[in-house]
């Protein structure tokens, strides 16, 4: 089945940066009530420079391969980068997932998450792919980052 490419299976079996780590600024718990998928996610920001940088993103995810892989890709792409850049990645992924298959995603912007392009053809699964991301945005907001205007 083309939806389940190597990258998705790899990320879902060995999620990058998985596990909850101490020293965080905010923790959130998000669920997808239609299927019961859950993620607990923590962000740790470095605010020493001009703009906040995502120093660490740790998480504990319970869910299907799509939601686990998407959260793993989020962590892989985002840790160590300025928050502003991670939000550009989010906008790229969001646009791809909402495109019903028209937008294949730009690997320069969203990295491994281009492997999730097939999800856009299954509207019921888009929520799975966005679960980790919506938790991440919520955690940023709780950590005091102004994300208004950064949402698509």
């Amino acid at each position, binding site marked *: 089945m083309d939806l*389940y490419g190597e990258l998705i299976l790899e990320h879902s*079996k060995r999620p990058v940066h998985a596990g909850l780590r101490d020293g965080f600024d905010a923790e959130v718990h998000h669920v997808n009530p239609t*299927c019961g998928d859950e993620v607990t996610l923590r962000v740790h920001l470095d605010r020493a420079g001009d703009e906040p940088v995502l120093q660490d993103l740790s998480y504990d995810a319970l*869910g299907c391969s799509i*939601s686990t892989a998407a959260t793993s890709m989020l962590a892989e792409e985002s840790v160590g980068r300025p928050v502003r850049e991670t939000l550009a990645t989010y906008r790229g992924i969001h646009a791809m997932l909402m495109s019903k298959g028209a937008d294949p995603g730009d690997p320069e912007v969203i990295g491994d998450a281009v492997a999730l392009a097939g999800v856009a053809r299954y509207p019921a*699964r888009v929520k*799975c792919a966005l679960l980790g991301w919506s938790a991440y945005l919520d955690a940023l907001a709780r950590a005091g980052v102004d994300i208004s205007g950064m949402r698509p």
Partner: protein
Amino acid sequence: MPALTAGESARIRADFPILSRTVRGGAPLVYLDSGATSQKPLAVLDAERDFYLRHNAAVHRGAHQLAEEATEAFEGARGRIARFVGAQPDEVVFTKNGTEAINLVAYAMSNAGAPGALDGADPEVARRLQVGPGDEIVVTEMEHHANLVPWQELCRRTGATLRWVGVTDDGYLEDPRSVIGPATKLVAFTHVSNVLGTVVDVADLVSAAREVGVLTLLDACQSVPHQPVDVTALDVDFLVFTGHKVLGPSGVGVLWARPELLAAMPPFLTGGSMIEIVHMERSTFAPPPQRFEAGVPVAAQAVGLAAACDYLDTVGMERVAAHDHALMGYTLEQLAQRPWVRVLGPSDPAHRVGAVAFTVEGVHPHDVGQVLDDQGIAVRTGHHCAWPLHRRLRVPASTRASFGVYTTTAEVDAFLVALDRVPQIFGVSA
């Protein structure tokens, strides 16, 4: 009673045109999600359409000829549906679905505590309907959220306590007598689990409730589609089912209750069509069932549901049950040959009806469902509105195949072929 023959099955399937469509780029549809909602035979669609084409008017409002015909069609449907479950017409209340029917009872019980709500009611019946601090409502751990959350909310509003009969590892109920006692007011439980397919021992729960003289409500949403159901034989006080799972249209549910209970119960929804006399300050209410049917009722849907009862009675509910039993036995036997599949619930097909939920070792149910869907097999994945039950069985979710009268062994085979691709796709050992 023999299961349906291949010829009978083929004739039944011809009545459900949707079953011959294709999905996902040409795969023949294999619809194994009748537990969520059933497909509808042409006879049901025709009955609904005929109502709109020829008799449509607001039921119980107006005296012109169409209003008369619409009212007659609606009340005729009430009688037909009552007969389907062995009840009298005025013991049957139409709601919009099963969920609303359960809420109707829960709200009647909390409204019973309001001043004057039970004026004129038989004092003994009134006492049974009133709920307050110290009282207990009993449910089971295998309930659909529809038969759990309304009782949690009733308890919250009235100060009563919710208690539940637990579920064993193999999907049966634990001893109800450890929970049902003198403080119990009502025992609300499912006839058939929408996840496990477990057929609950209604007689045992009813006798436990009778021993302490308390009310019983049976959620028959998953039994009425698959087997004969008779309110007298079951001996419960309330019985609920939903039209769209019994080949009927969506938008119609049924509450059956003992007439003395309906006579005493205060209304849930209020407004037009449920009144007797209205003044600016206050109103009096119509007798049941109208008292519980505020607003223009679901006439076309009721007519459609009555046609569904005709359809099922023509097949014969005993034979529908035999057919389900044959499918269940075959499916369980086939799944048992796959050690990577864990079937939830009783392993004895005689104790199950309608649904088989399972997990695949190492693969999330959503992913199982996706692989099946890509091959045209429609199953349900998730917690199927029974989250506490999944928690109890220590699985986050499951995949559920469920049957209808039109389901065939060949479809179960197609499901198995598709399922067998799962271990290879996800690299788990088969």
